[in-house]
């Protein structure tokens, strides 16, 4: 309540909190016709709502009013700090996108990601349907890639996720800090009142967006190439189940989003290393290295159930969407397994970066 009253005294004339005590909603029973305890209860509820609204508007102002606007005109009470989180973070993200989009490495990576599905499609178009004596397994879409154009994006996700997408994600997040350190631009930025947390957040969000675009490009260009080469037919999965085009597109969307998330641990690890080292190659290689180590350990049956906690163990779990009925459990577990990695790596990245001495 103290904060609310402070807010009202110091707030802008337009601040709703200044008028809240007088608010009486329409249809409210006149005071005289209501028993005293009921009236007090209703007034207490109204005060709580008003207090909550006042706090929300104050918080909104603190975080959205640009710091260039004088405090007196901002409606932010004098006793509260002005951080203008949202607009300044938005500015940082906008400038980060401006820096990253024109970079040759960004375009080359995305073009390469678009090229791979065409390459796989051409290979299948020339080589025909795969023949294998192995029993079909859910998710092994490379075995059935020529049966429908809709199989191709699934096949390309299957083929690229364990390595190519790992490289792309490691590149986009591993370079987040190191490239700017190398240019010396980070030093110039951080010698101004720029929050390191916000800068890291903007870089992480931009890296995540580019990584997500890389996953989308693989799926989208796989779909285009597949439909052009093999037509728009219902999908027959490796285990022989047929899905309509609509159902397949829906499952493809889920599979793409899941693939993005399954790379989160790799990306956050690259981000962490990016804050620690000044070497871009080291930061990118660390993400790829983590994926390789995880794959190697995953291939050792002696580890048994320990393997389920490896960051890449459930990477292709989306394949079980194409069972009848769909098995969502591996995806749910895979989603859960990524979470602690992301939390730990990102927290460490933030902790390190906000305390780091900028020496280069």
């Amino acid at each position, binding site marked *: 309540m103290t904060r609310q009253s402070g807010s009202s005294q110091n707030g802008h004339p337009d601040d709703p909190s200044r008028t809240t005590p007088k608010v009486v909603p329409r249809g409210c029973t006149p005071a005289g016709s209501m028993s005293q305890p009921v009236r007090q209860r209703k007034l207490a509820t109204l005060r709580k709502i008003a207090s909550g609204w006042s706090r929300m508007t104050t918080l909104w102002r603190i975080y959205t009013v640009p*710091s*260039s606007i004088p405090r007196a005109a901002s409606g932010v009470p004098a006793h509260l700090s002005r951080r203008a989180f949202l607009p300044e973070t938005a500015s940082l993200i906008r*400038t980060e996108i401006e820096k990253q989009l024109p970079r040759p490495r960004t375009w080359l990576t995305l073009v390469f990601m678009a090229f791979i599905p065409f390459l796989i499609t051409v290979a299948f178009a020339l080589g025909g349907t795969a023949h294998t004596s192995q029993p079909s397994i859910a998710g092994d879409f490379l075995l059935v890639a020529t049966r429908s154009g809709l199989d191709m994006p699934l096949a390309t996700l299957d083929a690229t996720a364990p390595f190519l997408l790992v490289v792309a994600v490691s590149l986009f997040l591993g370079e987040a800090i190191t490239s700017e350190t190398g240019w010396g*631009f980070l*030093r110039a930025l951080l*010698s*101004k*009142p720029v929050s390191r947390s916000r800068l890291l957040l903007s870089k992480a969000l931009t890296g995540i967006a580019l990584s997500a675009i890389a996953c989308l490009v693989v799926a989208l260009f796989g779909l285009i190439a597949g439909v052009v080469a093999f037509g728009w037919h219902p999908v027959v999965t490796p285990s022989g189940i047929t899905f309509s085009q609509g159902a397949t597109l829906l499952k493809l969307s889920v599979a793409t989003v899941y693939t993005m998330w399954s790379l989160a641990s790799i990306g956050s690890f690259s981000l962490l290393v990016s804050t620690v080292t000044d070497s871009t190659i080291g930061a990118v290689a660390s993400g790829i290295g983590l994926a390789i180590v995880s794959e190697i350990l995953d291939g050792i049956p002696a580890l048994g159930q320990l393997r389920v906690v490896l960051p890449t163990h459930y990477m292709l779990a989306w394949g079980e969407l194409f069972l009848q009925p769909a098995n969502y459990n591996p995806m749910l577990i895979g989603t859960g397994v990524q979470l602690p990695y992301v939390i730990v790596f990102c927290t460490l990245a933030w902790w390190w970066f906000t305390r780091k001495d900028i020496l280069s």
Partner: protein
Amino acid sequence: MPQIVRLEYSTDSNMETTPEPHLPFSSPTPSAATLHVPPVHVRGLTKKFRNGVVAVNGLDLKVEAGQVFGLLGLNGAGKTTTLRILLGLVRPSSGTVHIFGHPVTPGSSVLGRVGSVVDTPGFVPHLTGLQNLRTYWEAVGQDRRSQAIDDAVKMANLEGAIDREVRSYSFGMRQRLGIARALLGNPPLLILDEPTTGLDPKQVREVRSLIRILSQQGKTILLSSHLLGEVEQICSHAAVIHHGKLMASGSLADLTKAGTALYLEVDNISAAMTVLRSTVGVTDVRQESDGILLEVAERMERETIPRVLVAANIGIRAILPRRRLEDAFLGMIEEQDV
């Protein structure tokens, strides 16, 4: 070769009469209480790195408003580390750093009142000079379309090159763009680390002129250098750092007057030099630009010099105690090492 800075920028009457634009960022507005606060005040500053190297060791430093303050030291003396701590880039192990009375921490709002160039100015190489300025200015929370950008572009005086990618810039062009970026928003305090490194003699002279003009406009300038001649020409005050410790601090006159050197301006230099060479107690006589620099024995009575010159019918315009900064600096360093 384009000029390093367009000096008309600084001498433009508009620049001098226009009130200082609103200070960038949410920097604290100077109040009556803070007007007399030194722009830079460092107390007991120590920085020990994880590898055990003590870069700065108990440094005390105060830079008053309007001073052009030189931080002198050999390579590795701790100058750049000190400047980085002042800018919130490096955390001190102990001690305090205040800028305009506000403690400095990474991202402090008071850093909005500081323009800086530390090491070589860094830019995004695939963006143009103009895009770099705009991107930087927006990233630090300012309007990318503000007049400050136009002023900086004029200041950088890169002409057509401002629309070229920075990767194609020469070192001198980057340095100019870096100084222009430091002056974005007209900050009252400038921190420059080796500002003339990599510039050709003409550009060095122009940077010196720019620093003088900025100083005349009331800005406080703290610059580090190991080029003592440069400091001698630009700075009003200096501090000597050696092995992270403060050796001496004060006005250049204070730092250099304690020696046995005198500077004379006379109406007949050649005759004066002949007379002085034959005077007992004078150990060295050299012509320096329009005057004479002479070294005298420590025990020699200084009154002897004007006496012999007057006796030789030589007019004296000025006699000043003079020890070159280089001598003073090296003397302090050697003393410490011994």
